[in-house]
């Protein structure tokens, strides 16, 4: 059932909770602690040991608390999608990575800001051997010195293409392209692994 504008979108706290839940349930932390917690709960029942029950509760609730504290506030969501055709790129995308073809790759970055935010400044921060440039400035935004910014929030949800190029030869480690919130202490919003 698809309802346009479901009730939770109308209030800021519920939008934040929704964003938090979407982002948290996507993490490895969530995916491992839930089975572990279930296992501990089952054990506590089998062995009639309250200690395990306590551990089960802690394993279930401490990680989301940690995640909420670490990555707060949840006013923005970023996603990236591969635009390069070919199976190798599709497989790499499933692992959260993008593959350079002849030293280049193109991805689509989608940005969803909460409508209550009053402007943004996204810093595009590639690791040294790479360069990452938007294909163009989304309507009402300006790109300067590696930062894409909009002073007011006429356009809270938008997307742009990001061209990733190898500028210096990539040595041993796998570099990343990061997007940070320049208005909030360079908080990390998105990280794209590059092969």
């Amino acid at each position, binding site marked *: 059932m698809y309802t346009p504008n479901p009730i939770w979108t109308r209030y800021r706290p519920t939008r934040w909770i929704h964003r938090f839940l979407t982002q948290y349930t996507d993490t490895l932390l969530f995916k491992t602690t839930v089975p572990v917690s279930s296992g501990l709960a089952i054990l506590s029942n089998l062995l009639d040991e309250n200690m395990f029950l306590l551990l089960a509760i802690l394993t279930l609730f401490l990680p989301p608390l940690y995640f909420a504290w670490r990555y707060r506030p949840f006013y923005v969501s970023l996603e990236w999608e591969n*635009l390069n*055709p070919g199976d190798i790129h599709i497989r790499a995308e499933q692992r959260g990575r993008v593959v350079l073809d002849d030293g280049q790759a*193109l991805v*689509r970055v*989608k940005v969803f800001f909460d409508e209550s935010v009053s402007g943004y400044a996204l810093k595009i921060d590639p690791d040294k051997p790479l*360069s990452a*440039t*938007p*294909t*163009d*400035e*989304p*309507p009402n935004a300006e*790109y300067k010195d590696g930062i894409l910014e909009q002073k007011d929030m006429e356009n809270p949800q938008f*997307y*742009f*293409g990001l*061209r990733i*190029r190898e500028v210096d030869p990539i040595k041993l480690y796998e570099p990343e392209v990061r997007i940070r919130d320049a208005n909030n202490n360079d908080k990390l919003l998105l990280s794209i692994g590059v092969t």
Partner: protein
Amino acid sequence: MPVESVRNVSVEDGWEPSVEQSETLEITFYSPESDSAMAESSHAFAITPLYDDYPFSDPIKYKGEYHYKSQPTFGSSSTNNGQFEIRPQSGLIILETSGDRPTPSKIISALSETINQNLKIEREFVPGREQTWEFLSRMEKVGQIGEIEVIPPFGGVTKIDLRGSEVRQSSGVTLDEAIGNYPIEYAKVQLAYESDPFTVEYSSGQLVIESSDPEDKEYVYQIFETSMTES
């Protein structure tokens, strides 16, 4: 076919074209042949407005050529020669290169390092989305669009179905929804300024103008500048 790479450049007061040299690059500026040199500088060329909506009054440009020689640690060095134009009113530098290597970006970097006083060249060209569509729209008024590829919000890079609004493919992207909203990845237009028709291809800050007539090129540059200057 030579490729014209466009970048934003800010020319500060006090910049004067002069012969510049660095390890990899040698730059010389041309002078207009006529005796009636511009008052400010003998290197400034007057631009003749060819495009009706060209907004600049008394526009000038500086033209020059570069000789690039790479100095790699291993392997043999490669050379590349080409020309460039600095157009202060629109704040653009247009670099004409032929051949794939070295990449225009490398040459722009070298240019930027070599001419570093009072002239700042941005490494990448990131135009406004609406301005890129403005450029296409202006070209369409004096020519015919052959092809447009855009990045839609879902799916991969898609070619727009230009055949007509009645015929709409179920999975296609229409021009109406794309204009002003989707980033243009590639466009091909056919223009006919004074002489034979020629094609212009645009893609991420690069123009390929299939004509050897300098007036055709200048015409396209002016349409480009007009579109990019609009706010």
